[in-house]
């Protein structure tokens, strides 16, 4: 799909949000207040995985799409995979948020500048595209899931305009988006079922993303992984050498993800608020 279509989608979505706000008696400042705009413009892109796949990412130096990973391993992609069902198998996925993808213990944060470097080929959605396949009830029954996705694909980094507006209009306060506190209002998109995946912005970048580049903001891993004489430890050493933030943490009992999430939120508070 073309960037001009994504721009049209963005204008349409921002207009719908304003109308939604007015219809529900919500304040609709234009432009968004400074706090929401600043947070919306600067919040990082997050990619997290389980431990062994993270070591593989550190070893290769790239985040790779499902399609590329399958090609590299010379194995076909399962047709039941969510990305295949959505036609997004050629993309690397990020949440524009703290780490939220479950079953993950290690992660990378990238600066918002990564989006600017992919203006022509990156796209965003104001929800988790994979989660659409899990919906029991779609907002528009006559529309296919892929059709719904296409109608909500937005240009990068301009999708942050809608993010800032929604942080201000739909949430009690902008920080609630970061803290994973549900918005007061569901908004104009029509997704009401499910968890934070229905309102967390997603960015997709085609094919692969270089890890050890200027856009890398911070690396997170449990202390035991960072101490390994292996790819994760070597990425931490590279971070020391290149003054890139690197955060190791004690994993709370049984739950690396909780440690990852906690450390990431604290990092965002330290660096963006």
């Amino acid at each position, binding site marked *: 799909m073309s960037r001009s279509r994504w721009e049209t989608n963005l204008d349409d979505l921002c207009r719908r949000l304003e109308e939604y706000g007015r219809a529900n008696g919500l304040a609709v400042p234009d432009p968004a207040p400074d706090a929401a705009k600043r947070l919306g413009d600067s919040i990082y892109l997050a990619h997290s995985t389980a431990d062994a796949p993270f070591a593989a990412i550190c070893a290769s130096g790239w985040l790779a799409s499902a399609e590329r990973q399958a090609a590299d391993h010379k194995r076909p992609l399962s047709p039941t995979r969510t990305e295949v069902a959505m036609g997004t198998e050629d993309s690397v996925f990020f949440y524009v948020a703290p780490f939220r993808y479950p079953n993950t213990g290690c992660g990378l944060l990238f600066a918002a500048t990564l989006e600017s470097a992919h203006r022509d080929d990156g796209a965003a959605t104001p929800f988790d595209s994979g989660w659409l396949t899990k919906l029991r009830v779609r907002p528009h029954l006559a529309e296919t899931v892929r059709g719904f996705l296409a109608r909500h694909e937005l240009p990068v980094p301009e999708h942050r305009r809608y993010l800032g507006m929604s942080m201000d209009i739909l949430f009690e306060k902008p920080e609630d988006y970061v803290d994973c506190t549900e918005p007061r209002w569901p908004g104009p998109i029509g997704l009401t079922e499910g968890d934070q995946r229905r309102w967390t912005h997603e960015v997709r970048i085609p094919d692969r993303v270089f890890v050890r580049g200027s856009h890398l903001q911070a690396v997170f891993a449990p202390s035991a992984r960072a101490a390994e*004489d292996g790819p994760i430890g070597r990425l931490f050493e590279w971070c020391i*050498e290149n003054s890139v933030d690197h955060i190791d943490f004690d994993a709370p009992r049984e739950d690396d993800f909780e440690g990852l999430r906690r450390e990431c939120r604290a990092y965002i508070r330290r660096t963006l608020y």
Partner: protein
Amino acid sequence: MPSPHSVDDLEIVGYANVLSETMLPSVVPPVFRLKADPDRAFLPPYSFNAGFLCNATEVPASELDELRDAGEITLFGGVSPARREFELWVDQSFHWHYQSFDEARRELGRIASEAIKQATDALREGDLPRAERLAGVAISADDRRVEPLAIKAAVRRSRGNPLGERLMAELAARVAGEESFRILVDGYCAALPQSVPAAPRIDSKRPMHDVATIRPKAA
């Protein structure tokens, strides 16, 4: 808000991580399913409260294979009944154990102590790869122990890897002061067959020390 489920009503089908050999032993979060309705599975993040599993992410069991194939979870061949106050961990041979918190902690503590002893012996014999590997086992078993980090720092110093040594010092900062860690590393280095000179001391109070690592707050 998802409804809580009594742990007594659940069974374990796997764990929500994928690990390689160098990451073991490791405590892992179980993947549960309902005994009475095996098609309902539960993934982290979740919490436990008074014998109930709370705020878990529910997925249909049919989705578990997809998550396994995507490298997100590991599934067992069979199932095991869930127990209150129990912990799941995977040993160095990829065998899983489901024990009470106390038992698991004791067993992992024993593995850590044994690995530290063997790593120290390997260091004295000059077998650096073995010392490094065993120190890794000790850290995986109990990441609150400072000795394996010091052993790894000594190995890295002896290999002329100051970045690796500095990383170990950073990781140890949670459990040991900078000076006591340096003394510990010096001690392990002195135990090497061909003693490695002590690293030049870096006074962290120097006015410009680490200034280059301070990053501006994003606008």
